[in-house]
């Protein structure tokens, strides 16, 4: 999991904080349990010590003597882990359990008590309780000790249980957190899916019912998209107005010329100039109008835009009785082109076919993984192979020397090139006329241009 993912970051963050929390907890619990158990043990040792004090007598030499009955059996077994030492000025009494060993008792003032960690006869850790008393005129110190081994074993078991618990709780919390994160990020995932659909041209705006945290982002994208769309719309409108403003006077100029200049070389020249102006104008306007790969613009829809276009073509070529066969298969029903770009491309392609077909046109649109292919065939005169090559090699120049399709195809080629597609000319195998194939890159794939 990459740490750029919010989910991974939150997971790792939670894991680290939980581990820190449990480590702290562990430390505090460990210290407290030790203290508690030692305090309990010290109480017991003190009780045994008081008991020993109760059974302590002094003989006539002033030596301490213990009443056997008051000594618990555990102190009689050698190395039992329970030990005592009674020290007075003249003598030292040791429990039988100590065997040959001794316990170091610090010098204390009467009434003073001390708890010490010392090493026992088996080199095991002991807790030693020592207190100084004054009895029957004698200063005595009583030390009672017990092994810490049993205590440590108990604490160890407790530690294992605590660790098990900690791991369990951490695991559960992580799962819970991942679930919560997944739930809250689902709307983010939906927004991401929206962005993908936007790229594919399926939608033109992102949904704004997203969490507060990303709503400003989504809103900003939508604002940008709307602005871009408006700009495209305005510039297309301005270009339409420009075309209107230039072409109406051009019409008048050419018509006046025809009227005033007799049929001569001058008139042919006038026509030629007029043609050039119109072509330059058309090329520049067409280029400027293309939306290209702008994000969030509506795509050309094969289920609604295409029928409108075909109906329009049929009505514009009303006098020509042409049958159109269609095979439209892209599953998403979209061309990888902005709607008006698609209109322009298919309009020009089909219009050209309509002009030259004798009676039949075949339109096929197929989608592959990385491209969409548009193939248009007709049963018209076609173009000989050498001229096809020539036509494509000349690039953007509009060539009227190629008979028939020449001019229309030059416009189409420029258009396909501007849209980042590829154009191939051939002969229709089944209809015998021209076959024009246009390949358009689908989204995300880098565009390759022909020059």
């Amino acid at each position: 999991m990459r740490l750029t993912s919010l989910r991974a970051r939150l997971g790792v963050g939670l894991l680290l904080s939980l581990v820190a929390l449990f480590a702290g907890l562990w430390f505090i619990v460990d210290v407290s349990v030790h203290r508690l158990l030692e305090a309990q043990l010290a109480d017991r040792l003190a009780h045994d010590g008081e008991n020993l004090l109760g059974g302590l007598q002094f003989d006539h030499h002033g030596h301490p003597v213990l009443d056997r009955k008051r000594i618990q059996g555990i102190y009689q077994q050698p190395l039992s882990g329970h030990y005592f030492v009674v020290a007075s000025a003249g003598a030292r009494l040791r429990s039988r359990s100590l065997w040959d060993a001794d316990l170091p008792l610090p010098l204390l003032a009467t009434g003073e008590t001390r708890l010490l960690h010392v090493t026992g006869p088996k080199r095991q850790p002991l807790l030693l309780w020592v207190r100084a008393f004054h009895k029957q005129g004698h200063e005595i110190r009583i030390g009672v000790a017990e092994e810490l081994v049993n205590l440590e074993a108990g604490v160890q078991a407790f530690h294992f249980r605590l660790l098990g618990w900690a791991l369990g709780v951490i695991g559960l919390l992580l799962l819970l957190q991942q679930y919560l994160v997944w739930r809250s990020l689902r709307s983010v995932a939906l927004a991401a899916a929206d962005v993908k659909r936007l790229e594919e041209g399926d939608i033109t705006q992102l949904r704004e019912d997203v969490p507060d945290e990303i709503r400003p982002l989504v809103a900003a994208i939508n604002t940008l998209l709307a602005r871009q769309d408006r700009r495209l719309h305005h510039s297309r409108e301005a270009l339409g107005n420009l075309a209107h403003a230039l072409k109406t006077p051009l019409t008048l100029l050419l018509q006046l010329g025809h009227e005033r200049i007799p049929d001569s070389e001058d008139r042919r020249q006038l026509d030629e100039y007029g043609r050039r102006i119109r072509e330059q104008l058309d090329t520049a306007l067409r280029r400027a109008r293309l939306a290209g790969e702008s994000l969030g613009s509506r795509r050309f829809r094969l289920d609604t835009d295409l029928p409108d276009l075909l109906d329009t073509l049929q009505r514009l070529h009303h006098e020509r009785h042409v049958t159109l066969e269609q095979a439209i298969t892209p599953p998403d029903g979209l061309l990888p082109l902005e709607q008006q770009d698609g209109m322009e491309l298919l309009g020009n392609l089909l219009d050209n076919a309509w002009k030259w077909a004798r009676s039949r046109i075949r339109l096929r649109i197929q989608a592959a993984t990385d491209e969409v292919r548009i193939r248009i065939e007709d049963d018209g005169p076609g173009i000989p192979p050498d001229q096809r090559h020539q036509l494509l090699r000349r690039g953007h120049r509009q060539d009227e020397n190629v008979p028939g399709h020449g001019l229309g195809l030059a416009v189409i080629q420029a258009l396909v090139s501007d849209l980042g597609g590829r154009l191939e000319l051939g002969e229709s195998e089944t209809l015998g006329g021209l076959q024009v194939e246009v390949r358009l890159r689908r989204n995300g794939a880098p565009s390759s241009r022909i020059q």
Partner: protein
Amino acid sequence: MRLLIVEDDTDLATRLQGVLRQHGFAVDVCHNGVDGEFQGQEFPYDAIVLDLGLPDSPGLEVLGRWRAGGLRTPVLILTARDTWQQKVEGLQGGADDYLTKPFHEAELVARLQALIRRSRDQADPVLRVQGLELDEDTQSVRRGARRWDLTATEFRLLRYFMHHPGRILSKSRLTDHVYEMDADKDSNVIEVYVNRLRRKLGNDIITTRRGQGYVFGESGCD
């Protein structure tokens, strides 16, 4: 045949008016969308030439309101807006044909004639009724080997008759379709032209129905 041109460029509109008149049309001109919309609805035109880039009311909106109001007159859009999107919008918006500027006058005339023929379900480009053949290019009429030249008004009147054979056509209806808006519309003038056509083509070619109008050809046929 009476046409309406809605075109904001006065020079172009005047030129077109002249050209179309030469081809035997009565032509009214409007220079803005509001007037154009009103006139298109008010008068019985046989076809309308509509520019899209009008100053006050866009051509497509004018067209939309005509069609929404039930106006069936064929409309040819004549515009500098030449994208396929605009063509599709125009034709789906109710236009019948679309011609982009710059254009040849001859093409406009040919398309208008085709449009009017289509609107009358006339497949043959040459109008033939009652053994008469109307030649729109030379504004003359033939029967067999005989040929008569016609004046502009005679041509317009005969063409309208030939488009509506066997139907009673009132003087005012004929006036509406033969004359332009600001022409001196004395319906008695129609009588004069009907008589001239009778003298050229024979008396029985047009029958008078008293109080109703005229019938071209045999009453009740076709």
